């Protein structure tokens, strides 16, 4: 029997090739596939984690390649509780596209969605094109949490998802307290404070 207290839908976005699928696979399977094949037939991945004694199930959705030609379906964003916006620190272009992604989020995602910005591939130190401060500044200007990570070295990957799980759980619990009577299945009310989540391990740790 499945036993969990909360279920959250987390959605990854960002340019093609920034390592979204690798982040998901590293987190859910502990793998870093060298030759990244297409993820045929895989809709989302699941990982159940423990947050202060509660089992929390994370449903992590990947773009199914639709980001390659800027053609992500709106419904992909619709019921996400959290978004992970990923860029590649070795690709300035992937960073420069972030405003376009924010525009999509603004249009289609729930207004209370939590967004976290992740700069991936920090293991490729010599090829870095986007300094940590630049990422941090952008995140702060847009009310997002920020982390740099490496799917290859498993650096900060766990942190990204676990911080998100904690934040989502915290908000869900708060909601439970406030509304003790009946449960409303409307999209989670992940409230006001979500705009300024402070994450434990910030950019410098990379």
């Amino acid at each position: 029997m499945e036993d969990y207290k909360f279920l959250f839908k987390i959605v990854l976005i960002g340019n093609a090739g920034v390592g979204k699928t690798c982040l998901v696979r590293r987190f859910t399977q502990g793998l870093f596939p060298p030759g990244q094949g297409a993820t045929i037939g895989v809709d989302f991945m699941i990982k159940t984690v423990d947050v202060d004694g509660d089992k929390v199930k994370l449903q992590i959705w990947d773009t199914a390649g639709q980001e390659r030609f800027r053609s992500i379906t709106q419904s992909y964003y619709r019921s996400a509780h959290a978004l992970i916006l990923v860029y590649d620190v070795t690709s300035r272009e992937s960073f420069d596209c972030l405003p376009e992604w924010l525009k999509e989020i603004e249009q289609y995602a729930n207004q209370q969605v939590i967004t976290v910005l992740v700069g991936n591939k920090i293991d490729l130190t010599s090829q870095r094109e986007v300094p940590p401060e630049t990422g941090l500044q952008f995140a702060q200007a847009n009310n997002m949490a920020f982390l740099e990570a490496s799917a290859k070295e498993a650096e900060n990957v766990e942190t990204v998802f676990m911080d998100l799980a904690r934040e989502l759980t915290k908000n869900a619990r708060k909601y439970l307290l406030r509304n003790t009577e009946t449960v409303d299945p409307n999209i989670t009310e992940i409230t006001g404070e979500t705009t300024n989540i402070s994450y434990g391990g910030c950019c410098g740790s990379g």
Partner: protein
Amino acid sequence: MADELPSEFDAIVLGTGMAESILAAALARCGQKVLHLDRNDYYSGGWATFNWDGLQRWITRQTHPAVQAMNEAEGTKPVECSKLEEGESALSVPQQANTISNLEMFTYVREKAEEPPPEEKEAQEVVTDKEEGQTSGAEEIQQQIHTTEDSEQATGLGESPADATPEELAKETESDDKSDDRCDEKKEDSPEEKKQQEKQDGLEEEKQDSQEKGTLESPAPASSVVQQEKVQEKSEPPKKMEPKKWSMDDIHKEWRRFNIDLSPKMLFGRGSLVELLITSNISRYCEFKAVSRILTLLNGQLEQVPCSRADVFSSKFVTVLEKRMLMKFLTFCVEYEQHPEEYQGWEEKPFSEYLQSRQLTPNLQHFIFHAIAMATRDATTLEGLKSTQRFLRSLGRYGNTPFLWPLYGPGELPQCFCRMCAVFAGIYCLRRAARELIIDKDSNKCKGIVCTEGQRISCRWMVMQGSYVPHMCRKPDPPVGSVSRGIFFTDRSLKASENEQITLLSIPPVEGSNFPVRAVELGNGASACPKGMFVVHLTSQGTGSAKADLQPAAEKLFQPLDGEDADTESDRPKVLWCVYFNQLDTTDCDPSSLYTGLPENIVVTSGPGVDLGYEQAVQQARSLFEQMCPGEEFLPAAPNPEDIIYEDDDGYKSGEAPSSSDNSEENGNDSEWKPDQEKLDEGVAGASNEVSQDAAGEGAQGGDEGLPQGGGEEVPQGGEGTGDAEAAAKDTQEAEM
């Protein structure tokens, strides 16, 4: 993005409407390599749903003179193409859908909330009729859009309108105080959530209200007690909530809260689309709300139609005698084929006369003919019985009406199929289409396309929505029909009720017309518009311009549209803004009557058409699929992500485990939808009523890893799965607060 597309596919699909998207998903699902293109920068083509900005852009595009001119000049002879090889010719593909005509837009409120009350309601005709000059109409419309943008900027952030009521001012200041939208949202949502929980009770009450009211207006004797209630009820709405006075500025500011549908269709609870969503597991991508009430216009009043057994029994609107008659007749309709003697000789005769012959009272005839069968004036008995049966069979599966409404609008549905196609390696590219089709002269087969970026891409099959068919292959004067559409923003509901409703209403054909007008009313709860506003969609078979077809119905529902001040006495909705247009309808046409000389490996799909449901699109996609992939299963259940088997070595293999598919199909049907149904029944169907999440709870034994390592082969039994799904539904609810 300058990314090159792969150059070889099994099938290229042009257009992301319903039928094309279902077909694309089905092809990808059985291993075909699919390229799916759309020349628009949005999904769903003629089935799209837009926010306010998107709708304005769409309107501008439809009326842009350059586009119109291009369309007329385009594609009258074979084109030169540098990408051709020996023995090939090229056909140019239209770069703009030519499916919309007679678009007219009207604004009935001020641009800004600044003028003092007397000037309040000025009606501006923004677009002239097509006949009066397409060009000037288009210019005006653009101007209109520009002006409004300017004025929005001019108003700036949080400048309080001079004449705003104290409440409005207070509200504005409040929201300005908040640093961002999220706080605002939270604040606004709380009362509604409570309301939604009370919905069940509210529904009951409301039903009774309307029934009591009905008793009065029907010929049945009325008691004085009921009369008093009526008086109370009448005086209530204005006291309860004065409708907000909207300006265009308000609408512009709330652009993102609109979801406005080009084709406001509904799903029959037991219709083919619902079945397909379930069996294919595509239901995990979409969310629905139950259509909560069906109204009918009887003697100038809007009345709630008793459709379910319980409704009929509890209805005070129909007399005891009528109840018996209605029950008996509806029970017969559910399986009318079993009792041919009941309608022998009537099959091809008018349904209206048949109903008379059954000695049903005029009220009951009205209900059955207009509200349940939603029949055209000249419908035959067989047609009438069939539609009545379809309605009744879908009743109760997901609520007290037969219909479901897709949250965020029907434009989401084609995208769900696109997602499934993409998950199975389909490649998606909006804003790009075929510029030319490459035809092999000898075999008259389509070998591929040259896309708008100049790249040559080959394929074995071409699927295209009708508006992509080269002009060279179209017959002159095809026997096409049209759909007349009207979209109205209003300041209150057609029929006030305690809880917000999703309403379907069929307005009987007016004098001299054969076709009923269908109205769908949506509010904030359906994600259609900001709070306090309603969107009413009118749809009918087109006989002339949309405005001419729909205005008589609009006049019955709304305050006069002639631009006079709002009637403060009237409790009818005031129209704030509206647009009319005609959509080309080829759903009833045989392809051979529309196209000629089309290569045999090109298949063509229709647009939305006038029907309320999705049957036509599903049937079309299915039969085209059978033609293209004979013997293959049409959209089998996609593996549940939790049943996927991972392999330790080179990455992993995707779960093609046949057992998992079988399983999901087995326990997919009811277990997945039951939780959904429960929620819908509670009337709390909300934003994340997601089948996918329910399904996700099903049968997983993942523990901390969340992955059924190897154990995934041993799929949970059907029964177990069902139990889990129920439990999971509760958990999901918890998680979703």
